[in-house]
């Protein structure tokens, strides 16, 4: 599946707090529906470059969820006569670009390039014996697992969801993106769920009887991904990680998003990922 060439202006139809994060939605009239794991390069139409010339480059955000938006059904998240796809993004303000995106209000325009990158694979593509999925998310990394869980549900692929957060301030997305499913939670400060790491929950699950029949899909901070990777390699469980790297372009032009390959050299996360099979 290819993306429309170039960037296009999409209106914001919703923007609200989601726990300690924010959730905003755009209407993309042109673009195809994205697949879980894919991302977009975003920049606001107005007041970009306002903090002393920054942000300058667009920002890469994974798609958290999407839905067809039709002019016939105005309560499906669409406004006016727009058709196309509603794109939902979960965001945490950690710098000038994400801060500006957090300020978006309904009606503002956002430059959109995408959908970019590759998608998560169904469990049976990773291993013939993998009947179900375990989704492991940490912090803002829970976002792509929301659309993945929904797509698996639509295909009757059973999925268990494990989500971990540092503390209450650095958590969100639960009510908006995971309200209709059972979720096991972990928090480092113990404010909710298991006190500790989400990988503790994964280890328990894999050491049960699940190792033989599940594939693991993870997205979160690098130490979490390393722990998931190590666990899955040890337990011989197929595993895909949605990784992150600083990006300038998102479509292979700048060679900035290099991630080391296991056998030496680098891959470009935007065109060779962001979903990488590691086990």
């Amino acid at each position: 599946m290819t993306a429309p060439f170039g960037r296009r202006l999409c209106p914001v139809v919703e923007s609200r707090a989601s726990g300690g994060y924010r959730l905003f939605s755009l209407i993309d009239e042109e673009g195809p529906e994205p697949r879980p794991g894919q991302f977009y390069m975003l920049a606001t139409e107005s007041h970009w470059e306002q903090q002393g010339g920054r942000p300058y480059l667009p920002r890469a955000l994974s798609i958290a969820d999407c839905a067809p938006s039709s002019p016939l059904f105005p309560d499906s998240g669409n406004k006016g006569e727009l058709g196309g796809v509603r794109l939902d993004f979960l965001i945490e303000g950690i710098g000038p670009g994400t801060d500006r995106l957090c300020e978006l209000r309904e009606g503002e325009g956002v430059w959109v390039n995408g959908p970019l990158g590759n998608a998560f694979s169904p469990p049976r593509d990773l291993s013939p014996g993998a009947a179900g999925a375990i989704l492991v998310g940490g912090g803002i990394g829970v976002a792509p697992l929301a659309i993945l869980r929904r797509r698996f549900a639509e295909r009757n692929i059973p999925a268990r969801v494990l989500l971990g957060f540092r503390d209450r301030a650095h958590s969100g997305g639960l009510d908006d993106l995971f309200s209709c499913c059972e979720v096991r939670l972990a928090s480092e400060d113990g404010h909710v769920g298991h006190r500790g790491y989400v990988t503790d929950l994964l280890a328990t699950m894999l050491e049960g009887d699940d190792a033989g029949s599940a594939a693991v899909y993870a997205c979160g901070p690098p130490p979490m991904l390393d722990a998931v990777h190590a666990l899955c390699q040890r337990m011989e469980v197929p595993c895909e990680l949605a990784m992150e790297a600083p990006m300038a372009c998102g479509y292979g032009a700048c060679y900035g998003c290099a991630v080391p390959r296991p056998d030496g050299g680098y891959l470009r996360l935007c065109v060779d990922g962001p979903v990488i099979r590691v086990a």
Partner: protein
Amino acid sequence: MINASGTFDAIAARRVYGDELLEAFPFSAFVSKTITPEPRAGNEPQRIWETPAGMINSIGLPNKGLEGFLAEDLPRLAELPVPLIVSVMGTSAEKFARLVTGVGEREEVAAIELNVSCPNVHSGLIVGEQPAETLALLETLRPLTGKPLIVKLTPNVADPAAVAVAAREGGADAVSLINTLKASAIDPATGEPGVAAGHGGLSGPAVRPVAIAQLRAVAAAVEVPIVGMGGISNGADAREFIAAGATLVAVGTESFRDPRAGRRVAEELSSGAAERGHARPQLEV
């Protein structure tokens, strides 16, 4: 309107955007990322760092090497609807010669851009910083091909005009400038440079006034066609470069923000010129 070398991967873009890329190809000619004799993996991350109105890059020239380029990339690039310019870099005259010979004998290639922002391992000097080194290099390479040779000047010199004169004397058909400016930035979270290599090259609108100054100096010193680049983001910027002496202009970093930037800037340049009653610049390769 062409692309600045290293700011657009036509093969990757075609995978991402499909044939729409070819139908709306944003450049009148395509300049490849610099190739080196041997494959290079590139620098370790982090390779990019945003700065006010720009960015620092320390990518490290990852590429498949001459053989890999000729076997795998050249056939794909030959499918583009525009002429192909191949950028090459060698760390010695012998390595440069191997590249120019290998690339020069391919009919798919319209011109060769010499990336001289690299050290000569024998002398230890960066070729493009020294008029004498530049002249010597051109004298070695000129007899090896009949294809147009474009010398990509480095701005990290006190006197770019002298280097441009040397390039012309050595037989260069054109010069292009500016390449990126040596730059660094400290990550406030770590106290260390943001890019792993410690420093890199600055590009984007922040560098435009430096590019204009160097372009004026070079245009006053040589009579060859000049490809002007450095922070061009719209037609007005392109007009500024033409006024300062550029024959052709190139878009680089802006393509990261807007993949169609090359085409958009060209259209803005043409329509703006028409409004002002000026003749359209001749964009011939």
